[in-house]
């Protein structure tokens, strides 16, 4: 548990981050605090990086069934810089616009083959993560997959492209509320 050089953020830096992300000042300062507590001793926070394990064990992501996907999507070269963490927090913040959230939700959910679509295997994986077990009955899995594709697959290719996913999420009343992380404290 090292502490990197405590360099307080200047007003200009804060303003710049506020312009580039959806975070409020307080949220940026809170993330800066958390980041500094986690990064190795002696390094300047702008140069330090955190591993995916460190981010996965943050309280905000610790119990999330999709935390490994989130880390994959938001990290660069398997590490998180400070700005990567800010970018992640911005997407999950309450002020973010729907299009941004839907974009990243698609990237998080389009999992296994990374072919840019959510296909049936991806759906099965998502459902297993949601229920926290790999032992989901086949009948339930097939039924759910069939229903999801029936509701949102418009061109009948048994996959969800980004447009179809977006269309489905724009109708979903719970999406904005549930795809939200408020607090990045340690």
């Amino acid at each position: 548990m090292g502490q990197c050089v405590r360099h307080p953020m200047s007003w200009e830096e804060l303003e710049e981050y506020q312009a580039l992300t959806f975070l409020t000042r307080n949220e940026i300062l809170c993330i800066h605090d958390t980041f500094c507590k986690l990064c190795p001793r002696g390094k300047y926070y702008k140069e330090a990086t955190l591993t995916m394990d460190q981010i996965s064990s943050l309280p905000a992501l610790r119990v999330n069934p999709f935390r490994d996907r989130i880390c994959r999507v938001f990290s660069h070269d398997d590490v998180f810089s400070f700005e990567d963490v800010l970018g992640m927090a911005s997407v999950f913040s309450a002020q973010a616009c729907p299009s941004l959230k839907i974009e990243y939700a698609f990237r998080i959910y389009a999992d296994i083959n990374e072919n840019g679509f959510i296909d049936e295997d991806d759906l099965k994986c998502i459902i297993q993560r949601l229920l926290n077990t790999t032992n989901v009955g086949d009948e339930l899995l097939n039924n759910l997959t069939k229903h999801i594709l029936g509701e949102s697959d418009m061109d009948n290719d048994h996959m969800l492209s980004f447009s179809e996913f977006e269309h489905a999420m724009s109708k979903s009343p719970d999406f904005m509320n549930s795809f939200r992380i408020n607090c990045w404290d340690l």
Partner: protein
Amino acid sequence: MSDTSSVSGWDSHRDDTSDSSVFTSMTMSFLQELPSYRSLIRRRTTILGRDKTGGTLLKPASSENRVSSEAGRSEKEHLGSQSIRKYALNISEKRRLRFGPQRFFREIQEAQVKYLSEWDQWKQYSTKSWKRFIEEAKELASHLELWKNDIRSIEGKFGTGIQSYFSFLRFLVILNLVIFIIIFLFILLPIILTKYKITDSTFLIVPSNEVDMRCKVYPMNSTGLIYFYTYMIDLLSGTGFLEWTSLFYGHYTVDGVKFKNFTYDLPLAYLLSTVAYLALSLLWIVKRSVEGFKQNLVRSEEQYQSYCNKIFAGWDFCITDESTAKLKHSSILYELKTDLVEERIRQKVAQRTPEETLRIYSLRMLLNAIVITVLAACFYAIYEATIFSQEHMKKEINKMVFGENLLILYLPSIVITLANFITPIIFSKIIRYEDYSPAFEIRLTLLRCVFMRLATICALVFTLGSKITFCDNEDCRVCGYNHKLYPCWENQFGQEMYKLTIFDLIINLAVTLFVEFPRKLLVTHCSSWKLIRYWGQQEFGIPDNVLGIVYAQTICWIGSFFSPLLPAIATVKFIIIFYVKEISLMYTCRPSTRPFRASNSNFFFLLVLLIGLTLAFIPLGISMTHIPSSKACGPFTNYNISWDVVPKTVSTFPSALQTLIHSITSEAFAVPFFIVIWQLRLSDLPRVTQPSHHVLFHCPGWSTQTGSDSTQRAVGYGKSRQALSHSETYSCSGRDEKPTKLILNTILVPSKLTELPY
């Protein structure tokens, strides 16, 4: 998955027909040639470019120039404006996009400075400092937010459903506080200033000769030695010594307060502050519900039942607690399994024979009749209880036994609470036989309970009102109300509302202390008994709790006119309830396995609150405009009805103003005015309420390939009605076939989503 073909195609259509100014076209063309920018564009289009190809489908072939010019213009905007945030890039790329290459940017800046006059420079500086000031003010305001940490921790542990209940409670605390501040400033403050001789002012009492002396008789109780239990009874029921305090209407028997330079018209202030806080409550609730509205408008059952909603938006990303996460997993499993069951039921329903349908409908009618009978029985019980209580209150109270006193005084409250406790149980038993889908069952039960709760208050108020205006002999017709029994009838109203409030608080505390905590103790220590295990731990039922606080708030609104300190009492009560419920939640409750959707819960809470407010308008309106005000007490002794103070004040204005006011309030003006205001309000949300006809096109003949080809498959949107009629002019990009219309969806889409680059 880079889409080079679409990138080059898109770029080649760019020409600078957009802007005439040389300056911007120079920047645009220069920026486009930079290699870093090209790679950014390529990277961006793979992300947003899925949309671009969809867009290519929809734009008719002739207007490709228009497309590029639009893209060019939006490019320029995006480079400078706040919408940089919406791009799905990481921060360093956004920074590069925003500022461009450093050298060139510095040149642009220097060039710009030459063109900026001193005024513009000062404007820039001042907007920057104003923004900083606003940011600091916002930060300060967020520190002051009440109970922020408590609600955050509840959200993390129990999910957003329960958190929305506590946010709602916080809103009511603040609302009541603001109402009390209004009342304090306009009614209490002048009286306190005069009474305690802080300013040099006197009370003004105007004796009126028109009123019959019999109406002015207000017998005061003897203020001799008071026993302690009489004191307690007075405290709990608002009679005796409390009746003369500023708690009730009767205390404000002045016609004005005479300051040095002017006379403060207290009756007018009393009436107008009532109207003011009711209007404020209405506007605030509407504003809050509109904010929730903007997120989703379509609230049909199917939207919540949609599997996409349950799978993709099923996990609450806010959850931080391990046990809550486990509970959420099992609740999702439960929900999905229930849906399977529900679907089987739906199939069964579809296969119903006509005889079965007839049987079901006749059964439903019978059960609805039973529900109505139950409601009528409750109302009748309340009526009888109120009449009994009112009649026996007039007898010598100190001759009765302590418990009997309290029972008689609180009889209406007790009956109302019992009714509100028993009827939900009856309703939930009845609805099982009505054979509805589970989601509809919940809604209907909720609706019945809401109606029950709020109608019981109405029954009480109606009973009191009828007793007050009931006259069986000539005597009381003199004053317009029953002055023998109720010389100061507003006080009686106020006392009933005060009793309801106090009793509600006592019951809440008692249930928590004597039912919930013992239950939890039993479950943890005696879990070997099957009965205890079956009963289980307390579940935090959100609808019941919400109805409870809406009920309390409705009483507060009705009672505030007759008891000006009631909002302050309600504020304290809600604060106590917040902490009690929070402690009860943390220590005794388990979160319910049945998910309560947070997205529609805010709207549901505010809708029920709005119903309560509307219901509060009715008795207030009737008592202000139809029932003559008491002549023995209160600020309106010189007027026939309370509302008369307004026309009387208007008649003292100069005549030009008078005619203006008369013309404004006449029907010929008011009705069109309100229609115009309503239209304006609706036009505030134009993009939200106008249906956006989304049509999905499908390009035939394309193979379902994965990989690089897939972005060319066409799924796109038409944004207006015109899209439907003009489908012939669209062509699938790259091919000559016409698209076929696949699905027509008329949906209401929040405005932000229509800004997507399609």
